[in-house]
């Protein structure tokens, strides 16, 4: 017995909400990318919780793919941010309009 499944889902919901809030309200591309990371991590926790709920390894397999996709996304995203910073000297998304 660990905890009810709904508590795990609530935890991931709160984490996802925090990531979404960070991605929407911060005015700094690096913080936006950090918000995306928080959201991906929350989803990975949800998948692992679901794997435990149904006693099936499928959820953990998806969590591994989420890790790989997060790594790819963050490398491309940071390279794009560095490129944009070199050209415009700013990481504020409003400066790119």
């Amino acid at each position, binding site marked *: *017995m*660990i*905890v*009810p*499944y*709904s508590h*795990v*889902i*609530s*935890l991931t*919901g*709160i*984490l*996802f*909400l*925090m*990531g*979404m*809030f960070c991605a*929407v*309200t*911060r*005015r*700094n591309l*690096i*913080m936006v*990318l*950090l918000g995306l*990371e*928080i959201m991906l*991590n929350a989803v*990975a*926790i949800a998948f*692992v*919780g679901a*794997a*435990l709920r149904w*006693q099936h*390894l499928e959820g953990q*397999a998806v969590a591994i*793919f989420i*890790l*790989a*996709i*997060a*790594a*790819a996304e*963050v*490398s*491309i995203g*940071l*390279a*794009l*941010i*560095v*490129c944009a*910073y070199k050209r415009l*000297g*700013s*990481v504020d998304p409003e400066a790119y309009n």
Partner: protein
Amino acid sequence: MTLFSVAFYILASVIIISTGIAITRRNLVHAAVYLIISFFGSAMLFYLLGAPLLAALEVIIYAGAIMVLFLFIIMMLDEEKLEEKFFPIHQWTPAAVMSGLFVAVAALIISGDSDSQVQLQAFTAEPASFGRYLFQKHWLAIEIVSLLLLIALIGVLYLGRDVRKNNPK
């Protein structure tokens, strides 16, 4: 309350508090370091939920590789120039609307599903059997993900090339 559930609530509060501190920091280095604490908490949570291999990968990839990459970039970009208008007011409205909708829908789903009250049983996926499962049932997805990582590598090399060397003007 068993030992497992106490550990779960402690880890959950550590994760939520450190993430909450991280997303409100003005200093990007502090934000990244608080997020590393949050990812360590997530790794412990993975271990508690019966995924030791994922816990190790979370520490190595998320807390190790990704956050160190973030720290490199934050220190590479000139930090004094990174002053941002903090939480501008006209961005609060869409954020609040989205958050309210999200909370309402999530509360409806979690409370409406009687199945979600079921207690989780402790269960551990041994790394060896998990790896075997992964490569037997998901070998195609593994190949696709490795191709995706290769494409990301090529894309980053293309983005990071020296532009001045190619057009001398």
